[in-house]
């Protein structure tokens, strides 16, 4: 939207800019179920981070993660996804201009902060399919020319490329120009941001060392020195380059998205870029909330089975053996269909359709959680079996320490590394599972945007002539980057926690 100054923007676009500014003034915040779960998860992670900070033996492996460039770059990518997901998690209902007997009336549509920020591309929907960066629709239509003749041709888009007088000639040049300008702008902003944060960092370090030591030896080095010293650090260099590349990509996308559909539009003319960005939250919710659901099961049952043995062990083992021998797709399909029927019988439960779709998403997470705890549970049971024979557990038993205290003080901290690794590794497989389930038709609500629904719609589009390829490509690209980043990060974490790879001394 940087081009606002020298491009004639239609009036409605200007209206939108104002409404963006209105967000949060008189709107009603809405917390959906999955929002609550995500906030809970965030709080847990924050608490865990604070807890770990005080324990040097736990901080050490994370330092190792911070020293690897692959881990850090994938973490940067992941955090961008998380940022989009979080913005998309803060929901609200906009206040409507008209009031009914003094009470503010809120719209039935539940929006998110992300929707507000992306209102530009959200609202500019075309009639139907259009290719990425096109100025014409993807299908021929009968049009009436000014002189009354009926012509069958590709009509101009309502929003995409409307500023061009003659797209046939000008489109390529305009796209190139915007790309280059956008990239440059992104680069400049990126460099500026990095410089500012470096200065802040330098200032911060100076403040700290200044407080710790009275000797003002630091005075001679300036912020440039801080920067060059940081540049000697390999992962930092890799991070910097990635950050600049991403800034350029952002600049380009924002610049083009102002007047084009960067990834085209779908059957009902919605911008695919918007759909793909909205899908991120769904993927993240599935990946993380499921973990939240499954973790207590796996941890509690696994540790109980391993530590208590006897009939408890028998029952739990029996349970997970049975569960893991039922094909999970069948189980999920049955549960989701039942749920669907149930929801449809009680429409009065839901104020908004978003609440209904959200409940279904949450339910999907629950089901996935119930079917996927068995793997981790088995791992934890095995580890606990090994731990319970260790002498420090027996020493605690000899003191008469209660079972619950032995479990929380001795067993849980010593299996935490397994939990962590399993959780990070499971994330990507859950994101993929959602896509598969939605494709099969037992996934999220059709109105929820997700990679699965995108792929599902692409099923028909690929069979169309001429083929519509961009929906699938967009879903594929986004999912690839997300899952790849998650996997690489998981690898980095696992390596950092592997004692065999981190031997500092020889076994003499």
């Amino acid at each position, binding site marked *: 939207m940087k081009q606002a100054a020298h491009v004639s923007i239609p009036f409605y676009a200007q209206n939108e800019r104002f409404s963006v500014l209105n967000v949060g003034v008189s709107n009603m915040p809405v917390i959906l179920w999955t929002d609550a779960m995500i906030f809970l998860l965030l709080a847990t992670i924050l608490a865990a981070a604070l807890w770990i900070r005080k324990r040097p*033996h736990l901080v050490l492996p994370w330092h190792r993660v911070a020293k690897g460039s692959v881990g850090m770059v994938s973490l940067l990518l992941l955090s961008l996804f998380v940022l989009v997901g979080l913005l998309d998690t803060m929901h609200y209902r906009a206040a409507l201009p008209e009031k009914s007997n003094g009470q503010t009336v809120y719209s039935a549509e539940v929006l998110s902060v992300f929707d507000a920020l992306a209102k530009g591309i959200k609202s500019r929907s075309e009639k139907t399919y259009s290719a990425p960066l096109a100025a014409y629709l993807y299908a021929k239509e009968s049009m009436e020319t000014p002189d009354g003749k009926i012509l069958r041709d590709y009509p101009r888009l309502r929003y995409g490329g409307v500023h061009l007088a003659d797209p046939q000639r000008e489109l390529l040049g305009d796209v190139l120009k915007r790309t280059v300008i956008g990239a440059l702008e992104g680069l400049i902003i990126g460099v500026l941001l990095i410089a500012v944060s470096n200065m802040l960092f330098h200032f911060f370090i100076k403040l700290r060392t200044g407080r710790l030591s009275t000797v003002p030896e630091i005075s001679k080095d300036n912020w440039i020195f801080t920067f060059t010293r940081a540049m000697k650090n390999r992962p930092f260099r890799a991070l910097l380059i990635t950050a600049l590349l991403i800034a350029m990509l952002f600049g380009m996308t924002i610049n083009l998205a102002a007047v084009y559909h960067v990834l085209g539009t779908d059957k009902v003319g919605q911008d695919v870029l918007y759909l793909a960005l909205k899908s991120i939250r769904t993927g993240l919710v599935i990946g993380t909330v499921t973990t939240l659901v499954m973790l207590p099961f796996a941890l509690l049952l696994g540790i109980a089975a391993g530590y208590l043995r006897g009939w408890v062990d028998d029952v739990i083992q029996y349970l997970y053996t049975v569960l893991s021998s039922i094909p999970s797709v069948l189980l999920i399909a049955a549960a989701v269909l039942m749920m669907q029927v149930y929801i449809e019988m009680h429409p009065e439960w839901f104020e908004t359709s978003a609440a209904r779709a959200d409940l279904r998403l949450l339910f999907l997470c629950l089901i996935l959680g119930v079917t996927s705890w068995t793997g981790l549970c088995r791992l934890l049971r095995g580890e606990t079996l090994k731990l319970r024979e260790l002498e420090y557990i027996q*020493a605690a038993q*000899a*003191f008469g320490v209660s079972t619950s205290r032995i479990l929380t003080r*001795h067993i849980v901290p010593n299996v935490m590394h397994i939990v962590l690794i399993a959780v990070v590794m499971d994330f990507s497989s859950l994101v993929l599972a959602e896509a598969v389930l939605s494709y099969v038709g037992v996934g999220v609500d059709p109105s929820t945007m997700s990679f699965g629904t995108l792929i599902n719609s692409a099923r028909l589009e690929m069979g169309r002539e001429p083929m519509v390829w961009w929906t699938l490509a967009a879903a594929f690209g986004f999912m690839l980057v997300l899952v790849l980043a998650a996997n690489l990060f998981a690898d980095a974490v696992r390596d950092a926690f592997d004692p065999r790879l981190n031997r500092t001394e*020889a*076994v*003499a």
Partner: protein
Amino acid sequence: MKSDLSLNPLPSAPPEIGRGEFILNVDGLVTRLNNGARIVDDISFSIKQGETFALLGESGCGKSMTALSLMRLLPDGIRIASGDIKLDEEDILALPEYAMRKVRGGQMAMIFQEPGLSLNPVMTVGDQIAEALKLHQKLRGDEIRPRCVELLEQVGISDAFRRANEYPFQLSGGMKQRVMIAMALAGQPKLLIADEPTTALDVTIQAQVLKLLRDTQQKTGMALLLITHDLGVVAQMAHQVGVMYAGQIIEQAPREQLFARPAHPYTQKLFAALPDAGRSGQPLAAIPGNVPPLGASLAACRFAPRCDKAWALCHDQVPEWTQLENGQGVRCHLYTSQIGSDKLNLNVPLSPGSSTASGEVAGEEGSDSSLLQVENLQVHFPIHKGILKRTVGHVKAVDGVSMNIPAGRTLALVGESGCGKTTVGKALLQLITPTAGSVRFAGHELIGISARQLRKQRAGMQMIFQDPYASLNPKMRVAEILQEGMDALSIANNSDERQRRIDELLEQVGLEKASKWRYPHEFSGGQRQRIAIARVLAVNPNLLICDEPTSALDVSVQAQILNLLKSLQQQLGLSYLFISHNLAVVEYLAHEVYVMYLGRIVERGTVKEVLHAPKHPYTQALLSAVPRIDGQGMKTVRLAGETPSPSNPPQGCHFHTRCAHAMAECHKEYPGETIITATHRVHCYLAAE
């Protein structure tokens, strides 16, 4: 080891065989970590044909790395930096890898500490030996089998033809080590490197394996590089001895000379740190401190921080290798400088003189204020089989043990591994529920009482475990570890009092106060064992069950812990149930000894009675199997075979399958108790006659 030992001849000297040419010459070997730390630092030695060279040293001093350097089998991240290794005039370091593969297992073979880990679990024993034969002997198809069987017979495996078709899991630890030796012999090596070959084995099995090595050497004339931390093994086996410390050989001498007159202060201390009965009154001469970490400063004598003879020179100059007139080599300033020889002439006694009876705690016969009374304790573990987990039998781990521990005394429980010692300890603490019997502690019966009542008694009786690396939770700081017991048993109510108590405990066990905020991984094995001791002292117990508390520690550190245990007993009047297989430690520490075999006590009595006048053939065999540095063993009683399984003990006297004196009646019924003196009792028909 006493300083006057040179007067005694060494009766159990290794056989003198025709020793010939030098087979192995190592000169100036340096092996480094990739970060530059020297693990093996300038080591030189030579071994003659038919000779045994023992490398003696504590854990972490670089013995195994020296051996792996010779084989060129160093792990990743460690490499040979300089030096010269010649095997039979062939430069080992110059050989390309493919030629080296021929040398390994051919001219030079190696056996390791853990026989279980060195054999491939999915191949039969015969196939594994055959593989070695094919590689190094160029034998063809039908010649291989007979040779395999021959080798197995040579290492003393009975029924060799059947055993060749068995898998490693079907063999016991001792047999696996024999198979390893057979594999090593397959290539008819000129040099056999044995890295702690008997450390994982019981004394009786150790005696068998050592004898096998000696016999084999006599037959084949191979040279043997024996790596060990056990002075007793050295005394039995070695011709030449190199003592290693922190990556260097600090003393080298023929065995007789080394044992008669150790020159280096470290070697002297090692001898003095060995526990035995002669010293049971006094503290052991423990070496303070720990083995220095890898890559410590190179500008001083590495032993200087722990050496009581050190002076300024020792701290700023590395001592050179000095050859003494009698052929002994040593790395110490005492022998190079004027001040040094002055110091030497002061003639500091090597060990605290010969013992007097004054140190003996009064009351040999045991006081009558009994703290713990155990009557007919039984622990049977059910054996489950099949999918329905039906009980098909019982492992009678403990089968009718009675004992009596008076206050302030130490009772030792000795026996081979698997005889049920640990199970007794855990059953006393009610960590394992006993099947039957009675345990009365300070007048209260412990078996069958409720969990709440049991908790009241918990503080009185505590346990110190064998492995200091497994007995402390790695995720808890020392203060939290010490506090756990106090919390559970509500000792010291407010936190100030608790912190004061923790400081006091740390001081009591000889650790700094600052260590309470550190995690266990920052401590060495000996320090960890001190923490474990502090943890149990926190609840003011009367009885400590010590399950092999020093068997995972080095000799010099073992002495520190034994001294600590002894002084705690004197200060606090503690009683100990001391579980051990190390008879020298038992002799030093205990008042009474119970000998256990297959879940039952076969002999009990005072230390003097049991260890100096044993009546049971098993006790006699145990005692004679222990390699003694003074060689004053009793008449040799070799113990054939291995302990039978406790799930199916032999009919009659459990020991009759291995007993040299077994008679007809021994096969029929378990012998009853024979009272020899008021304290000395034996279960054996021999003694009953």
